[in-house]
């Protein structure tokens, strides 16, 4: 088991991000975490990354508390969080200096594949910055990728290329937990689908099982959450 959530509740000042969430995440799996806005997707990923701590319950990632294992997982948040002065070259310096598992060759390959311009982020569009963030995240060689809305704000071609990059990571045996609103585009990637509703698991199923029933992830999403 690569990661576990046991009856995890995260309470904010006035609301609850997730409630009694229990999930086991296996190695080498692509798991889609889907739900409406405010359903708890980001909270769940932040908890798994160790950015948030649970109010109740227990989380382990890569065999220990997520924060302690932060150097061994990738978390790509939904916020456009690059420094304005940062260029792809600076990104390489940053990642290479801080992460032992950073792969410079893969980084350059991803920069080319995702067509990231070689200029400072302040001169990039939102989508270009998103692609740079993705290249930085996927150029690390880890077992667990937690990706929160990696497809948001980027064009169709780049989304397709992003999905191809994710498939490649998955083929190397990595586990990808992916939250996205681009359900239709990403559904071919999912092996497992978790639908969240008001912080709880509304559905946890294998994508293959849905296909066998003649259902798509999109139609199931509408059926369960609509």
């Amino acid at each position, binding site marked *: 088991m690569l990661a576990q959530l046991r009856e995890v509740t995260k309470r904010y*000042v006035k609301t609850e991000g997730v409630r009694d969430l229990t999930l086991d995440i296996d190695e080498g799996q692509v798991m889609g975490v889907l739900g409406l806005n405010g359903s708890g997707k980001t909270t769940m990923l932040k908890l798994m990354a160790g950015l*948030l701590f649970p109010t109740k319950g227990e989380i382990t990632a890569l065999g220990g508390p997520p924060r302690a294992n932060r150097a061994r997982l990738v978390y790509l948040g939904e*916020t456009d*969080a*690059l420094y304005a002065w940062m260029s792809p070259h*600076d990104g390489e310096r940053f990642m*290479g200096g801080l992460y032992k598992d950073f792969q410079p060759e893969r980084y350059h390959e991803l920069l080319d594949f995702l067509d990231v311009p070689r200029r400072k982020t302040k001169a990039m569009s939102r989508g270009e910055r998103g692609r740079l963030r993705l290249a930085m995240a996927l150029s690390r060689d880890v077992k667990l990728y937690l990706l929160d809305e990696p497809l948001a704000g980027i064009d169709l071609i780049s989304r397709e290329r992003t999905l191809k990059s994710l498939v490649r990571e998955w083929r190397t045996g990595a586990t990808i937990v992916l939250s996205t609103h681009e359900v239709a585009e990403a559904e071919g990637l999912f092996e497992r689908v978790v639908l969240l509703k008001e912080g709880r698991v509304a559905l946890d199923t294998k994508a293959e099982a849905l296909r066998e029933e003649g259902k798509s992830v999109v139609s199931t999403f509408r059926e369960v959450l609509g």
Partner: protein
Amino acid sequence: MKGFATLLWLEYRRSRVWAAALLGSLLFWFWGLNQVTVTDVGERAGIRVAIVGIAALLGVIVLCFMIGRIRGETRRGQYQILLLTPPSGYLHVLARFLFALGVAIVYYVIIGGLLWWVALQAGIHPDAGSVLQLLLAGPFYGIGAVLVPFLVWTLLLMVFSSAFRLSGPSWIPGIVMVAGTPFLFRWIGDGIISVSYSLPTWRMYAGLTALAERFSPEELEITVNGVPVAQEPLWIMLALSVVMLIIAGRIWQEVEG
């Protein structure tokens, strides 16, 4: 070690504009010193020393602003990225502090140089020992006893407010912390004064003060043996700064993003 070097580089990239502006401002202050054209030599030197004093004070303020720019990082999400990097919170805090300290050392050594220039312009030619004290001992004492605690306190305050977002009930400890600062400083100041001069004092600028006294014996009420400087404020403030740095690092280590 590579991680820490990268954090220092990151701090340099984050703050180099501030550092360059601060160090560049010394040209402005030097220009300002040259604009003082009062004919009385003693008065001219006095005005110039006051200008250098203002530059020194503004340096503290600018450096505190430079080191305290953490809230913006929190809003933009960069703080969250840094929280998940492998180096510990202590190293993050230390890198920020050391970069600011490095800039401060350069700035205040040059300020010491400006004071030397003011002395030379007033016809006071200090001996080699006094020049070294003007350029090194004086700035380092001031940095250790005054600037370092201010920098670390600012860092601690901003790490604290970024960590707890100062929203909802967190406002209470935040307000207590900010509003309590002047009282805390006063309490610490009173404490330091009460124990100062228990240890042997350091005599500084002996050559310089002797010359200055010869130059203007009535106006400058200083001893020919130099200015007696108490050791205690330096040691107490440095010890407090270390404690505050550890607390800031611990908060960074434990905080949610």
